């Protein structure tokens, strides 16, 4: 089959690889009909996420048709159309029983690597390096899906691929980011990053009752989408001296009630601090560049919530813990527990409360994945979200 493989920094290639096979009894093989490139794939593309091997198949946002099931899968049959959550989760362990599927205790065969780097291990993830299990990803013609009786959600016939594809990751991730803010009526929410997760975080904050949402980015077409499609007030951080000051101005001096970091480890900014962070990241002294996170903390109102859904991988410097502690901030974060959001969000899409297709700007062939990564990474051609078709 054809699959998009990571071949080194800024180098992905669609190559011929063996077809996937059933390895565990609860596996299913899916023929992929639609898959997407995620912002977090760019962290791999840019070489910032450790434990990648040349030849790793990328992709954790995919859906398709079941072509084979293991003998332990009783709820799916060949021909079913399913959308697959990016965290691999068993459904049997303590974390899964508690609904925290991205913390599944059984799905990461390389848990020892993660334990050494992080203390404890998170779940396995499709196409996201070896620390998260070493699973082949879904930017391919076929994929093996472990625990197929627990993860994949059957899609109603009348819904299109594009309507449901983002249930795999970015819509639930953004929704959880907003949910962690414990929004109450009248709240103002600030969202850093107007990539696809940022757009959905704005929309989710409104769905959950926010009075107004302020979005921060420096890419004009993304800010335009945040205004026009998601309804945010937008700030271009290139145009202002200090984002926290502007946020004060827009909130009567209080600061936003909650801040959502949808940027993660490759944040950009200005000045000495940014140059210093970038230098340290290049020298591998710190893994992550926490520009957005620092700003979010400094901006948040006293006693407010900072919600982190942008991906961080390792260590950061100059974390303003004093601001967090003395101002009673609450930090909420996590890889999304996608499983528990898929069905309710599918219902919201069905009811017309949200139409996730608004972020799609590019539809490409799987064969053109390399070009897709290039334009998405460089933010060329007004690229917001790319869907790849088999």
């Amino acid at each position, binding site marked *: 089959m054809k699959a998009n493989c990571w071949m080194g920094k800024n180098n992905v290639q669609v190559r011929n690889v063996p077809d996937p096979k059933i390895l565990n009894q609860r596996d299913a093989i899916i023929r992929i009909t639609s898959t997407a490139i995620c912002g977090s794939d760019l962290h791999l593309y840019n070489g910032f996420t450790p434990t990648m091997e040349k030849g790793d*198949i990328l992709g954790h946002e995919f859906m398709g048709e079941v072509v084979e099931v293991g003998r332990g899968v009783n709820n799916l049959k060949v021909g079913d159309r399913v959308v697959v959550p990016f965290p691999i989760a068993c459904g049997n362990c303590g974390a899964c029983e508690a609904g925290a599927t991205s913390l599944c205790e059984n799905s990461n065969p390389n848990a020892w690597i993660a334990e050494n780097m992080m203390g404890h291990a998170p779940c396995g993830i499709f196409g996201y390096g070896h620390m998260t299990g070493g699973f082949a990803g879904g930017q391919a013609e076929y994929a093996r899906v472990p625990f197929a009786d627990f993860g994949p959600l059957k899609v109603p016939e009348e819904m299109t691929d594009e309507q449901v594809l983002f249930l795999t990751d970015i819509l639930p991730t953004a929704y959880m980011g907003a949910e962690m803010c414990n929004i109450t009526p009248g709240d103002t929410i600030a969202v850093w990053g107007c990539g696809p997760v940022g757009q959905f975080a704005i929309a989710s904050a409104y769905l959950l009752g926010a009075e107004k949402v302020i979005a921060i980015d420096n890419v004009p077409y993304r800010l335009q989408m945040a205004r026009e499609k998601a309804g945010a007030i937008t700030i271009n951080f290139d145009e202002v001296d200090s984002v926290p000051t502007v946020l004060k101005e827009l909130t009567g001096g209080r600061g936003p009630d909650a801040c959502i970091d949808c940027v993660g480890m490759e944040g950009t900014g200005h000045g000495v601090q940014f140059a210093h962070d970038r230098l340290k990241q290049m020298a591998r002294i710190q893994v992550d560049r926490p520009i957005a996170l620092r700003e979010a903390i400094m901006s948040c109102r006293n006693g407010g919530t900072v919600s982190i859904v942008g991906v961080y991988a390792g260590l950061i410097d100059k974390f303003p813990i004093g601001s967090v502690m003395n101002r009673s901030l609450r930090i909420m974060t996590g890889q999304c527990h996608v499983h528990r959001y898929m069905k309710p969000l599918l219902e919201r899409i069905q009811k017309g409360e949200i139409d996730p297709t608004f972020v799609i700007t590019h539809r490409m062939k799987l064969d053109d994945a390399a070009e897709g990564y290039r334009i998405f990474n460089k933010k060329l051609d007004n690229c917001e979200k790319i869907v790849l078709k088999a």
Partner: protein
Amino acid sequence: METSQQSGVGTGLTDGGFTKRKASAVPRALPFVPAGEHYRPLNVRRGGDGLANFLGWFSLGLGISQLVAPDGVARLIGLRPTERTRSTMRGIGMREVASGVGILSQKRQADWLWARVAGDTMDLGLLGRSATNDRNERERTTAAIFAVAGVFALDLFAATQVGKRSGSLVQGQPDDNGRRPGAGGGDNFEEYAKNSRANGGPGNYRGEEGGINTGLRNDAGKTKSGLRMTTNTITVNKGVEEIYDFWRNFENLPRFMRHLQSVKVLGNGRSKWVANAPAGTTVEWEAETTEDRPSELISWRSLPGSQVHNAGTVRFRSAPGGRGTEVRVDLEYAPPAGKLGAMVAMLFREEPGQQVHDDLRNFKQVMELGEIVLSDASAHKGMHPAQPSNKPVEMKL
């Protein structure tokens, strides 16, 4: 407008993803460390450890410099390089390398540190004589004397500290009476518990159950290099009885212990174990069950005369709040020398703790899922990309 509580999405999990499950009403055994008691590690780290290692590396570094560049070292300490200084320097270099290797090997560490103390004394004598020789640079030599005196003090301190630590459970060094841990009649864990009770008052949890119940104490006289020990624990989302029953049948162990090929139960509490060893060979031993308390613990040990000495205890406890069962494995093993030593090192990898931990994680998967989860990368040996393979699966399922 809706709030998150009313939205119906996310089941109200706004605490970061965890809802507390209902506590079970089942009465449970005491936890491994009961409330109100102090945790005391078996593998006690005391001062002197890091220093001894530092001195070991220092010895090795200095010795190699003296062997490779005797003239350079001589000039550094103010001596004029001659044939005689060169050979003296090489001799001292060999001595330094020997004590460095000795200290770092951790066997009879105290003796090697005392050897360093003696060596320092000799060096001070030699340097003192050189300092009176006009052909040498006196300032440099005097500086060297002060440096050696400083190292002498460190060596002396480390040697006395490591000496005090003798009788350590882990290193298996002789205690003050020359008795090795586990040797005839002395149960380390009981003694340890007694000591810790004396020091820390009642209730040392290790003392309550006495570590590994089998001990190698009856045949430990045969082990030359002392005992090593590793402790690992994991929580399994199943009831105590089910887990105990599974483990009690030793023939199940190869399903989750990566290096075990088979275990055959022979009856009378005895079993025969076969493990994979390097180059496609195997190593075998017989073991006996020394204690078996249903739903609580199982202890085993290899029989005297086995190729591979090991003993273990697995304990089971209901995790608090109905969160499954805590499984704790204490493994004690005596790495024998030579060829078998290599096999055992492989058997437990370099780091036996990691190996047991991996096996316990596999155990959890076998109990909770009925099989071991494979990824594209983990299904085959060695590093390779995460993509499907046409090769057959090499790992246990």
